[in-house]
């Protein structure tokens, strides 16, 4: 679903916390490590990050707690002012925006969901959801109508008169989601939206989230510290450590080719066959002719397990979603992935 013009474009972005970050950054020699910076009394929340997010893409940012995920996303929405580098939203440098423009941007283009919901305790579900509309001065009738639409969308109709403390955690986060969607944003930020929920509810909310995404097709930046969640949701995963991005790739590539020992650690316990798609294992054709019925490149190796065991061919042709054969996959490699190397 990606197109060429990135919605978010981030070039060499830095965010330092400390007494005098701008001046420090301008005088800092190249190649300072996180710990060098720390020793100078600064925390590198975001460290030289360059990243593009395409339209309709779901980028998952993943990393241990304190690795800078929230800080990075808060730089995208300019809740933090970056210390160095540039961040552009739809080609507009957000650091150059005056306060008015920034408010306008948030009122029209961005929605954000928070880990502990960030609901206003004195407002009902309806008033919370309608809050962004109220901020932009919409009249109360229209506000109500639109808010009710979104409340229905997240499955909370009937509860619109409740106050946040009268709701369960899962329901509160639905309110948070509804509020972030009410202005029909182009870009949707979610900062560990399901981390505060218990595992069963989390699963349910993830399904719900995927349903919404399928329906709405927004550009999404999703934060999690849960690798399984990342694999389940992501088009691409960016793995962060100490403010920097260690690797940014598709789930298949991250699982198959972890670039650093740190990334490897995450992937070790993953059931790879569940993640990796046939297309990721396929090698290019290089003009070779292949025969027989191709397999669907969009299937995971686990889904192909029966075929792999029964099909006697050494190399299996792999087709993309339109049915054209795009590569061949070695059956042995796939079986190795499925059952472990012999």
């Amino acid at each position, binding site marked *: 679903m990606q197109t060429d013009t990135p919605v978010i474009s981030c070039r060499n972005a830095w965010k330092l916390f400390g007494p005098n970050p701008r001046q420090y950054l301008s005088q800092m020699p190249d190649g300072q490590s996180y710990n060098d910076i720390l020793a100078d009394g600064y925390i590198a929340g975001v460290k030289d990050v360059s990243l593009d997010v395409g339209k309709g893409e779901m980028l998952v940012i993943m990393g241990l707690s304190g690795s800078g995920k929230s800080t990075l996303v808060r730089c995208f929405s300019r809740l933090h002012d970056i210390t160095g580098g540039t961040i552009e939203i739809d080609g507009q440098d957000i650091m150059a925006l005056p306060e008015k423009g920034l408010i306008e941007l*948030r009122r029209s283009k961005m929605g954000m969901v928070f880990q502990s919901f*960030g609901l206003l305790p004195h407002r009902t579900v309806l008033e919370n959801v309608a809050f962004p509309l109220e901020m932009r001065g919409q009249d109360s009738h229209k506000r109500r109508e639109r808010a009710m639409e979104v409340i229905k969308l997240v499955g909370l109709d009937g509860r619109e008169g409740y106050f946040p403390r*009268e709701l369960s955690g899962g329901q509160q986060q639905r309110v948070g989601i509804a509020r972030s969607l009410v202005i029909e944003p182009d870009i949707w930020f979610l900062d560990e939206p399901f981390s505060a929920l218990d595992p069963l509810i989390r699963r349910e909310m993830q399904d719900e989230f995927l349903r919404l995404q399928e329906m709405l097709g927004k550009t999404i930046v999703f934060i999690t510290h849960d690798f399984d969640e990342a694999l389940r949701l992501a088009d691409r995963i960016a793995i962060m450590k100490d403010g920097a991005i260690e690797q940014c790739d598709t789930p298949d590539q991250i699982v198959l080719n972890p670039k650093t020992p740190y990334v490897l650690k995450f992937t070790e316990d993953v059931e790879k066959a569940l993640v990796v798609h046939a297309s990721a294992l396929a090698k290019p054709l290089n003009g070779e002719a292949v025969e027989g019925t191709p397999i669907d490149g969009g299937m995971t190796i686990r889904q192909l397990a029966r075929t792999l065991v029964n099909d006697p061919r050494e190399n299996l042709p792999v087709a993309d979603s339109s049915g054209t054969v795009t590569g061949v996959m070695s059956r042995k490699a796939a079986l190795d992935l499925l059952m472990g190397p012999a």
Partner: protein
Amino acid sequence: MFLQAILVTALILTAAKPILPDFLVRLPDVWIPPFADWLDVFFEFIRGDMDAGRWGLIYVTRWFADGPLEFMLGVTANILEGRHRWPYFENPLPWSSVAAVTVVLGYYLGGWRMALLAGGTMIWTALMGQWNITMQTVSVLLVAAPLGFAIGLVVGITAWKYRSFDNAIRPLLAVMQTLPFYTYLLPAVIFFKVGPTAGAIATTIYATPPMILMTTIGLRKVSPEVVEAGKMSGATRWQMLTKVFIPTARTEILVGVNQVIMLSLAMIVLTAFIGMPGLGATLLSSMNSFRLGRSLEIGITIVLLAIMLDQMSKAWVAKQPVHFERGTPWYLRHKHVVVALVLFSVFYVAAQFFDMLNDIGRRQSFSQAREIDALIKGFLALDVVKSITGTIRYVLNVWVLVPFRDALLWIPTSAFILFVVAFAYGVGGKRPALYALIFFSLVALSGWWDRSVITLYTVFAAVFLASLFGIPLGIVASRSERWSKRILMLCDTAQTFPSFVYLLPAIMLFGITDTTVVLSVVIYTMVPLTRYTIEGLRNVPPEMSEAADMSGATRWQKLTSVQLPLAVPTMAVGFNQAIMFAFFMVIIAAFIGTQDLGQELQRTLAGTDLGKNFVLGICVSLMALTFDMAILSWANRRKKALGL
């Protein structure tokens, strides 16, 4: 080492008093700078002079007093007590109508219990024939408390926005909270005219600091995610403040409101000293003329009013919004307003026909003042009672109070200051010791040394006696869950009583004497002592008590070697509060007749001696702050060391 050195020096100075040069014993008068005159010049300058047409603050304050303030006070006075002011209602509202609305408000805030409390208070007041004087007090409260709220909110928000402003006002607020109330009264009179205007202003200023602090605390506590959610919703700065920060900080702000209301009530009662009519003035004159029955009845009214206001405002803090089912009609959504309006009108109409519902005068009232008076006086005249009170008075005076006072007065000023510095150093450390040195030297330089020492002596004696009773009471009560709760509730309730009423029981038993002052302070300060003892002991982590049990400790061993040491920091906070309360009360009690700073302060109220008034007030404040800083810094350090 340093500590020993100061102590030894102080002891040597004391022992060597007969051969000490005079200036070390007492500062000679010629050394005393004329602070009061300087202050007078300063005040004169900023005040301006209306007669001479010289511009100054007084133009602003007089405008405010004559304009908006007078107007607001006039409105509430017209509606509640029928004074001839705008909006020119013929008669004040019937008491039954006001009572009905209060009951509904009570029900709305706290259910039947609160409704009962409100109704009981109102009916008692009316039946005792005190409705009018109570409304005189309430009409000022209705102006002073909202004013305090508004000022506190604005200043609190500013302090939250600008750190430097916050840092600047913190010490000012600390001084304001220890300045004796009389020091507020005189400037109020000079800048804002005598009577309700001055009373309202003094009250407002005294009641505002907690509101400022609570506002700042509340706004700082708003969770960062709520703030970010607000920003991401595209809120402007103003929208952030009014729609995100203030509503989310509701709880703390309402706690501030509760404190403003309670302090306002306590202070309005005290404004009797500058001639404000109402409950305070009537109580004061009854006490002065020893009409105990009437004093008691008014005391009860004040206490009931205080409990009612406290409980209702606390219920407001705790009240959380609850949703209505869809399709609830408007009269059910606003049923409290509807019921209040209906009852108000019903009683209003009924009052036109039944005079009892309109106004119960002194004569028709059910007041038993005369009978109670006779009863109390008869009781006091009993030989047994007389001999008991006489003995207590004698023992206290001859064995405790007078010797202690004379001893303190005997100590040379220089040695006294060093003793205080040693105390501050030993307890609080270097900073408190430095402040102690500066503050007490200033007190010595003020020229009011002897009176300051007498004030201190009363404070110490009272807190000491209160500890003798209050701490053991707390220890015993903390033994059982049930008793802890009961006594804590009693303390909480007692703490809401306006300080003035604490004088009542003491005056009843001991008449208008020195002992009365000390005893009323003892009763007043027992409250925090008992309270914090219980809290300290109850909050000892259960693992630690259990560990002591498992080591085979007896109850006594457990108490002395585990529970008390862990509770001591909390108890110290209570002790500190007791000292602050004592300073406050000692000064108030001055009208009974003391020889301390309070008496001098009270005398200034009759004149225009602003400079002297301030010097005296600041002496009290400096002494109070010295102990405050030392003890609190000890308590904090100790708490940290114990990991509490």
